[in-house]
């Protein structure tokens, strides 16, 4: 299970292992790690082997974030509001994988409804970082990142509204990829913020990410925002040729001089990033330093909060305990719905919904919501301008390795640095964006991110593949370092 998809496929083909063997191993490992790291809501013990086909995913186990609807399998969104919910249909992306013969073996823990970046707010408890259980995995695709890093299976599905695939990937030392908005149908994915939500995958190498998304993607009659990508074959278009490619990084985010009292971790993280850029240049890639207005970058976290909370307020309005979810108590319907929601949502969600509701108020919409949408456009336009000249923007992920659990409060604080939040640009613009591990700080993994222009997924993955091969962190399996 520590192997890549292609290696597993070849082993299956040669008869060295069977689908049954792989499933058994994945299930055993799931049980083993769950006690310690709490990565799963459900372990699918009765997972059945499938026959080997030409599809590289056939017969191979994988994990599904618990906000993807799975037919006849509990799907909770890691929330008490849906703690007993069993969908009667599969999310389109899940169905496509099942059709390819892939075998789901567990449902992974997330921050409740994907609304959090710590991996600590799921209704089944905190997900711990496989490199250091005192640290967080980040989120919201916490369980998926943890399980892939520990080698339970080669890949797990994630979803990404702000950085929910790409940040936990960095903290767990693996690859996290969210393709262009609409490349994978969102049908059946529990919504957080519809204009920012993306489906994607967590893997241990870039090729695996390409293989999985090739199967998940495609236009879907059930999702009007999905588009036809039949002419795109990510796996086949990766060749590692990157000579002459152009990348840029942003001065305001990467220059240590912009930080007043940088921590040692931040220093090492940024220095490591700059060192790696030198390696990449040797591949024939041109890398420039560019500047983005500071006021735009500073506004980024608030723009994200405003838009995501506002949309979430509306998206979570179907959770009333009437059609699904536990019934609330109350004398009348309103009290009943209120009881359901009060008990069903964690404090974090409640706060975000209230903020979203305030932002959407008639009197406040112009100032908060619409202005946030305007700045979103400015930021997206600024990035699109970069794409006129560059293939992609390359940036370090976060301000260092995984954060300590005891210091975790998923609250927007004044010193929240744009460095922690810049991945949200990928969601604002619907840009393809991939995180790959780029080294260690304090023996803990850190990552870098490459974000390119819409529909340019093949190019982005190809660059990521070349960079990955220029470093030595590909296919790494997490081991506790302390």
């Amino acid at each position, binding site marked *: 299970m520590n192997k890549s998809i292609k290696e597993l496929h070849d082993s299956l083909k040669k008869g060295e292992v069977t689908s049954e063997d792989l499933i058994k191993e994945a299930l055993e490992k799931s049980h083993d790690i769950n006690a310690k790291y709490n990565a799963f809501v459900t372990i699918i013990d009765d997972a059945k082997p499938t026959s080997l086909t030409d599809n590289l995913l056939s017969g191979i186990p994988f994990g599904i974030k618990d*906000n993807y609807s799975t037919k006849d399998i509990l799907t909770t*969104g890691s929330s008490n509001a849906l703690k007993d919910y069993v*969908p009667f249909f599969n999310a389109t992306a899940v169905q496509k994988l099942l059709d390819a013969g892939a075998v789901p073996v567990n449902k992974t823990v997330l921050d409740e409804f994907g609304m959090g970046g710590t991996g600590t707010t799921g209704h089944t408890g905190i997900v711990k970082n496989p490199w250091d259980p005192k640290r967080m995995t980040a989120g919201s695709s916490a369980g998926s990142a943890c399980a892939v890093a520990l080698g339970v299976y080669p890949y797990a599905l994630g979803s990404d509204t702000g950085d929910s695939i790409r940040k936990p990937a960095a903290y767990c030392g693996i690859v996290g990829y969210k393709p262009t908005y609409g490349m994978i149908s969102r049908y059946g994915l529990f919504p957080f913020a519809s204009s920012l939500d993306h489906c994607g995958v967590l893997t241990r190498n870039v090729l695996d990410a390409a293989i999985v998304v090739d199967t998940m993607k495609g236009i879907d009659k*059930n*999702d009007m925002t999905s588009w036809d990508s039949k002419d795109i074959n990510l796996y086949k278009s990766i060749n590692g040729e990157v000579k002459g490619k152009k990348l840029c990084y942003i001065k305001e985010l990467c220059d240590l001089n912009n930080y007043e009292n940088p921590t040692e971790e931040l220093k090492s993280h940024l220095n490591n990033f700059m060192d790696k850029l030198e390696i990449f240049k040797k591949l024939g890639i041109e890398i420039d330093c560019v500047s983005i207005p500071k006021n735009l970058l500073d506004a980024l976290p608030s723009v994200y909060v405003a838009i995501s909370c*506002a949309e979430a307020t509306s998206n979570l309005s*179907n959770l009333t305990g009437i059609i699904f979810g536990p019934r609330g108590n109350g004398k009348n319907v309103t009290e009943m719905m209120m009881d359901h929601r009060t008990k069903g949502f964690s404090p974090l969600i409640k706060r975000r919904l209230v903020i979203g509701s305030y932002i*959407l108020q008639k009197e406040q*919409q112009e100032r908060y919501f619409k202005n946030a949408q305007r700045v979103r456009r400015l930021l997206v336009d600024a990035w699109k301008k970069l794409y006129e000249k560059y293939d992609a923007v390359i940036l370090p992920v976060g301000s260092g390795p995984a954060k300590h659990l005891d210091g975790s409060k998923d609250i927007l604080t004044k010193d929240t640095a744009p460095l922690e939040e810049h991945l949200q640009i990928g969601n604002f613009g619907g840009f393809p964006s991939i995180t790959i591990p780029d080294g260690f700080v304090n023996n803990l993994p850190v990552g870098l991110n490459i974000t390119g222009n819409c529909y340019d997924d093949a190019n982005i993955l190809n660059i990521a593949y070349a960079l990955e091969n220029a470093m030595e962190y590909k296919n790494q399996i997490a081991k506790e370092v302390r």
Partner: protein
Amino acid sequence: MGKYKAVIGLEMHCELKSNSKVFSSAKNSYNETPNDNISAVDMAFPGTLPVVNKKCVKDALKMSIALNCTQPEYMYFDRKNYYYPDLPKGYQITQMASPVGVNGHITIECNGEKIPVNIHDIHLEEDAASLDHYYDTSCIDYNRAGVPLLELVTEPCLHSALEAVAFLEHMRSVYKYCDVSEADTKKGQIRCDVNISIMDYDATELGTRVEVKNINSFGNVYDAINYEIKRQSELKDQGRYEEIEQETRRFDEESGTTIRMRSKADAIDYKYFVDPNLPKFKISPEWLEEIKKEIPLLALERKEKYMNELNLSDYDAGVIIKEREYAEYFESCLNIGIDAKIACNWLTTQILGEINKLEINIKDFYLTPSLLKQIIDEINKGTISSKQAKEIFYKSLEEKKEPKTYINSDMAQISDNDELETIINKILEESQTQVEQYKNGKDNLFDYFVGQVMKNTRGKANPVITKEILNKKLNN
């Protein structure tokens, strides 16, 4: 005319005809069995997404064009957020920022007078589920959830209950002529909200606006408006006008009164925002042109055409255009060469009488225009009398056999001039006294001679030719 000027605005919700719902592919049709026309989208299961029905967009645009509205360059939708057990998503998908039509205008007829009505906007949205109420529980049926609705909002430009109902009737006719809705109030397909205020005739500022919500028949619209005008007028008479609040009321059918629901202060903030799940759709001018071509000549336009070009009376033309199918029947008659007045007479008397009696659609009426023509042709040829024509009409209907089956030689009129002249000569010879009297000025004896000819021929003499010959013989 009342003591005060009433100012009325209408919001008319009308269910559209389609195979599937507006944002899901569940069936759009009335179903007695609860929850038998539903999809996961209609019940807002987590992760489901709306997908817009092309026909609904097209029909909404059709109405927008028919009402002379301006169409937007891009079509998109907004979410109207509120909690109610009949609204599974917790929001209704509707159009706030960019409706399918704005700034329209039409002319309606009320009491023979032409009245201009300004349309604020017309927009496409989805219906809610329906609730069945029991002793201490309500049950939710999602069959109606997601049924396409068109909401039309007028400017406050109507001034009486009669005008309001005339407008609604007019709109109902437009919907039916355009074939976008059955527009059947009995099936609950039309629901209205009414805004009413009163003011002095010489005042320039509008009075306090009261909204009466969710009225489900035109009769109730009429009663609610009149009740509100009376209520508000009485308060104004008593110097208590300030007691009228900007509020929402509902109409109570039993008492015929309106009852307060909530004041403006309690108005719900629906927190409208653009739904990101439904991408902006560009409405091409070519598509609009295509849709425009599908709009038939509407009732009032047809009425004018019938009156001006075919010289029908206001009354007759009014009867024919009442339903699109009547007008179409009438026009089919014209197309196969039946004279307009004759077609009109048959349609407005015999045919409508029969279809009302049989309670059928004119489309299912046995005597199609071409079968009707068989009868009319025989009258024109003089083969049968109008009395015989009617007999054939009913017989043919009853036995469902073509009229020509009943037209036989025995029935044939005597239209042969020579034959008639011989008979007439014989009668005149035998009636010398009467001929004398007639020539001396007793004019009414002319009918006597006609009667004699009929008697002699057992009613088969062609009356026109008979009169012609008699005229020639007696008046020269």
